[in-house]
């Protein structure tokens, strides 16, 4: 049986803040930060945007791109670490706003930056078992870095939605297989009720990101018998530009393979949207027959890898919704004061 992506849609808020502007406030060296992080600016949500509005925009874009009847969607799963409610599923808001309700199942997913790919895997299971016709999986975040914390330079906002199905005539990208690698690793967390996350210092690099991404990626290639050179493109979770570049090299992927999907330098880390944004940007330009390798990473920690082959259908659906490049161009730059207002860092009571 063939399972795959029937459609996809991305959303990035229009506002941006430059690294220089954040560094100016804290007296940090902007040039050193840009070199170290390979991030130059990050997206900022408007005052009235949150993970739910971003998820809805991405989902509507996915529905518009494939022109399917939304009532065929039998499951809506939204992955985020910034769900607007502690109790009240974001996925109910999305389901209603795209006209998929009421005959559908819904739930919210959480797994740091890989909640969106976990949602894709759940949809793959439900679709392949025949329990649902189409599944909608979303990764969307308005991530928070504490003022002055290193994360503030990269914590951004954005989201991507994927419609998963199994009708061969409808699939734009076949998901050949998926593989996950998960352990209990204290690299990053946020306790209930806390505004900002904590990170476990030395845990964030090698024992977190690199261990889980390399083991997950190698695990999938071993399972299906592929090598890096079998792929035209590769996407790795992008908390900054440095990590995916380094992990690609470690695994034997080239700069050219990751380049089309490396969107973090211009928009920052969109957390649950991060790896999916890279996949979306790659699908925006991939040709039928091209193969894409992707590994998402979530702190805590785990990775989800996917081996994808693009079909002829991509050409038909691609231009019915904005591409990631179109979403990124023409930003409105804001200063730190406006950024603080947009992010709700100013409390009125």
């Amino acid at each position: 049986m063939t399972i795959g992506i029937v459609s996809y849609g991305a959303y990035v808020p229009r506002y941006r803040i430059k690294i220089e502007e954040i560094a100016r406030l804290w007296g940090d060296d902007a040039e050193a930060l840009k070199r170290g992080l390979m991030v130059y600016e990050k997206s900022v949500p408007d005052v009235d945007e949150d993970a739910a509005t971003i998820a809805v925009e991405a989902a509507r874009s996915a529905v518009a791109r494939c022109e399917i009847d939304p009532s065929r969607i039998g499951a809506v799963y939204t992955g985020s670490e910034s769900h607007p409610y502690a109790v009240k599923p974001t996925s109910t808001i999305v389901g209603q706003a795209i006209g998929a309700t009421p005959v559908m199942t819904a739930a919210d997913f959480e797994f740091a930056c890989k909640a969106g790919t976990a949602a894709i895997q759940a949809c793959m299971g439900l679709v392949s078992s025949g329990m649902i016709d189409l599944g909608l999986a979303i990764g969307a975040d308005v991530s928070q870095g504490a003022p002055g914390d290193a994360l503030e330079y990269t914590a951004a906002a954005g989201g991507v939605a994927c419609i998963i199905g199994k009708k061969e005539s409808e699939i734009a990208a076949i998901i050949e297989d998926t593989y996950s690698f998960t352990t209990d690793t204290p690299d990053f967390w946020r306790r209930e009720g806390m505004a900002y996350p904590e990170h476990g210092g030395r845990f964030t690099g090698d024992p977190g990101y690199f261990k889980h991404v390399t083991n997950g990626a190698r695990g999938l290639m071993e399972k299906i018998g592929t090598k890096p050179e079998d792929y035209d493109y590769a996407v790795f979770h992008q908390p900054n530009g440095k990590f995916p570049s380094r992990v690609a090299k470690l695994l034997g992927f080239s700069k050219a393979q990751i380049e089309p999907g490396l969107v973090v330098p211009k928009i920052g880390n969109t957390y649950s949207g991060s790896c999916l944004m890279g996949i979306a940007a790659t699908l925006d330009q991939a040709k039928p027959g091209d193969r894409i390798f992707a590994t998402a990473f979530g702190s805590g920690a785990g990775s989800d890898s996917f081996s994808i082959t693009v079909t002829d259908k991509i050409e038909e659906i691609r231009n019915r919704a904005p591409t990631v490049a179109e979403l990124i161009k023409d930003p409105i730059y804001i200063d730190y004061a406006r950024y603080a207002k947009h992010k709700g860092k100013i409390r009125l009571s």
Partner: protein
Amino acid sequence: MSVPRFWRKLDSRYNLKGTHCVECGEYFYPPRNTCVNCRRQGQIEAYRFKGTGEIVTYTVIHTAAEGFEKQAPYTLAIIKLDEGPSLTAQVVGSSVNAYIGMRVRSVFRKLGEGGERGMIYYGTKFIPVDG
């Protein structure tokens, strides 16, 4: 705004759902169950507006109502949808000032919240098509 009052109109706020009279072709937002032109001869069907239109007039609100404080200053406009009906909504996300005749399209945004503990109200706002 009360939670039940908001909830009853939720679908029309989220998805610009109105009605259309098949008999005379008039569109209604908010939805009407009888046509003002055709009365009992009218034939009303549900209709989802495309969400495109233009600004008829606008004002910039500096002193916001309760629940909207964090959004001030904001642009409130009367928007004429391409199908005909007009509605009042915020225009957001623009790099330029609003003007009469500006082309806009609908987006999904937070309308307000009932304080820290209350419900979050979502619905439709508009952004400029260009700029």
